[in-house]
């Protein structure tokens, strides 16, 4: 049977009342056990023996438990507020003012039955929760991230959801569960470790009390969604919020694990939460977001795909179109130039595939990563060389050119000067000695070898056996890994399982130069 909101709303919450009583019983019995064991140990040995002694101890323990209960449950809202680092809304902040207005609106919608206040949790996270204690302090917490990123209607839906938790009374029950069981848990665990077996009973009771809270938490989220819709008459806004929350950081780590059950969506991503069925119903604190969204959307005759489409449309609206966008480019002197439009960029004499380009946002990419630029480069190379191969340069994403080198075939990138060589052709290249090496290459070869010899020792000391995945193989599209050519000739190259090898600019010349001049032994000897 499909669970509609009206059905959920109609189910009177006798369960909440029952669990409330059981929760209190569990707390008092476990706390009494702790007190009795503790005082029994301390007092009973020396004085006050007999029946009256145990009676006095019982009374004393009961008083202490009640004091503890009073302290925890009556000031719970304030304690949680301090724990979260939340503050009252700032009257000078416009968004906070809007929040206060929305609170007042919801207050009107509820018929002004309960006084409620709100508090803002600083930070980027997106979540909201409500607490309610015996002092009639009802507080709705909402994170700064949520206030800033939601529209008016959406914020209203969130506040209405939390307000319903408070109105229906389940909020007080869960607040109590959190403050009695959640906050005391570390303490109980500690005394169980140091205090011995006598406390295990109370520990079990505590755990059970905590679990009990989970049993009803799913249902109350559904009910609060229903209540929110009844108040705002806007199921779409709430569906939008849930969908948005499911795709963003909800404050894992910011909101303590004991408060998870109070939040509108679980801050921690929990596999169990997204499941349905008996087991998941019992032990997860929140219903699947997808299901909640679907129920809400069914009321507006919309679907999740539509929401996703709208979201994507909305995001692309904010971004200017590709052709109108302006870019900044880093020149040879490492100075940012710009802004340029795409044609202006292409006309720059120093603009190449390896130029760092930014579109003004935080991301900086190589020019070859931008599709429009990549097309320009492709067109250029085709114009200049006529025929290109199907292989793409793993660095620049441009087509490689077939070239003859030392009388064999290699593939070279015109832009970055990198070369693709098959593993069976490399020995031929090394054996054939046609080229004479310039002083520059020789110096580079010596420096590379020396530096890598030192680094190699450090590397092997760290026992870094992990493959460093770097580029995509132009031939088989698998990943290549970065490695030395050999242990004697320490030139870094990229290898692929298919046998292809990638040399960056001059790396091949350096390798050839090393081998032909027998540099390995020479340098090792010098060391």
């Amino acid at each position: 049977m499909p669970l509609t909101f009206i059905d959920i709303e109609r189910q009177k919450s006798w369960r909440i009342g029952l669990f409330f009583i059981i929760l209190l019983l569990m707390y008092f019995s476990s706390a009494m056990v702790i007190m009795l064991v503790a005082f029994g140990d301390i007092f009973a040995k020396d004085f006050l023996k007999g029946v009256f002694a145990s009676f006095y101890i019982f009374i004393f323990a009961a008083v202490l438990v009640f004091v503890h209960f009073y302290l925890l449950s009556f000031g719970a809202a304030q304690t949680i507020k301090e724990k979260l680092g939340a503050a009252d809304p700032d009257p000078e902040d416009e968004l906070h003012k809007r929040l206060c207005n929305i609170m007042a609106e919801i207050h009107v919608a509820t018929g002004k039955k309960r006084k409620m206040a709100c508090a803002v949790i600083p930070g980027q996270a997106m979540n909201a929760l409500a607490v309610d204690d015996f002092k009639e302090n009802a507080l709705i917490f909402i994170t700064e991230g949520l206030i800033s990123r939601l529209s008016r209607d959406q914020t209203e839906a969130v506040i209405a959801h939390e307000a319903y938790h408070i109105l229906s009374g389940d909020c007080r029950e869960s607040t109590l569960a959190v403050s009695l069981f959640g906050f005391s848990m570390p303490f109980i665990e500690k005394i169980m470790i140091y205090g011995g077996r006598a406390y295990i009973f109370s520990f079990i009771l505590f755990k059970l009390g905590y679990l009990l809270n989970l049993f009803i938490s799913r249902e109350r989220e559904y009910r609060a969604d229903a209540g929110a819709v009844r108040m705002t008459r806007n199921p779409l806004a709430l569906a939008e919020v849930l969908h948005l929350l499911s795709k963003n950081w909800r404050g894992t780590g910011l909101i303590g694990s004991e408060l998870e059950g109070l939040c509108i969506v679980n801050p921690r991503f929990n596999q169990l939460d997204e499941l349905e069925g008996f087991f998941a119903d019992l032990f997860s604190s929140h219903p699947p977001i997808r299901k909640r969204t679907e129920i809400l959307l069914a009321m507006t005759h919309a679907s999740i795909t539509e929401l996703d489409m709208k979201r994507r449309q909305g995001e692309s609206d904010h971004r200017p179109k590709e052709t109108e966008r302006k870019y900044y480019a880093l020149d040879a002197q490492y100075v940012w130039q710009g802004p340029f439009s795409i044609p202006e960029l292409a006309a720059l004499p120093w603009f190449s595939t390896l130029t760092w380009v930014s579109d003004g946002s935080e991301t900086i990419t190589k020019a070859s990563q931008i599709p429009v630029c990549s097309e320009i480069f492709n067109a250029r190379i085709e114009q200049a060389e006529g025929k290109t191969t199907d292989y793409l340069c793993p660095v620049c994403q441009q087509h490689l050119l077939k070239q003859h080198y030392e009388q064999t075939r290699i593939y070279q990138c015109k832009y970055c000067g990198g070369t693709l060589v098959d593993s069976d052709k490399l020995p031929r290249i090394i054996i054939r000695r046609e080229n004479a090496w310039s002083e520059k290459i020789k110096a580079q070869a010596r420096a590379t070898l020396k530096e890598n010899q030192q680094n190699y020792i450090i590397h092997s000391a760290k026992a870094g056996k992990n493959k460093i995945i770097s580029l995509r193989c132009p031939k088989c599209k698998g990943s290549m890994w970065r490695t030395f050519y050999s242990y004697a000739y320490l030139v870094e190259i990229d290898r692929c399982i298919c046998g292809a090898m990638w040399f960056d600019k001059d790396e091949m010349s350096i390798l050839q130069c090393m081998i032909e001049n027998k540099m390995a032994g020479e340098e090792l000897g010098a060391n």
Partner: protein
Amino acid sequence: MVGLIVLGCIGLIIAWGIVTFNRLVSLRNEVQNSWKQIDVQLKRRHDLIPNLVSVVKGTMEFEQDTLEKVINARAKAVSAGSVQEKVTAENMLTQALGKLFAVMENYPQLRSNDNIMQLQEEVTSTENRIGFARQLYNDLVAQYRVKQEVFPNNIFVAFFGGFKKEVYFEAEEEAKKAPQADISIRRDSSH
């Protein structure tokens, strides 16, 4: 024995009568109270409108007609007496305000004025509060009407006659449009 049963039945009927009467009375009071709540919010709206008009007057001098309509509608709403009159006048005012906001969109210089933005937020909030108060009122009226009209109660109500039917606060046609989905992340959160 028979006498006892008859007596018991009469007792039950009287008890039912008392319970029904009390429920009706408390509902009637809630309806009246929620009407008062609407009044509070409407007063808030009436107080805000002169401020709004005086602030936008300078910039929107070519829209005298729209402003005039708002001012007139407000005057009518303030002086309205009966519930029915009030409902009509307020609906007219809502329409006039909607028109004003639509026209304000054409004046970008208004958006850069902090004062106006704050005022607009206040007006939006007030409109929402009126909406919610009206919603609550209508819900309660519906409940009250159902209580009056279901079977044994209608005889009871006709017999006593102290419970008159309350009027719904109906929304104007324009507000019945379906909402549009929008979950894009807002960069400008000014409204």
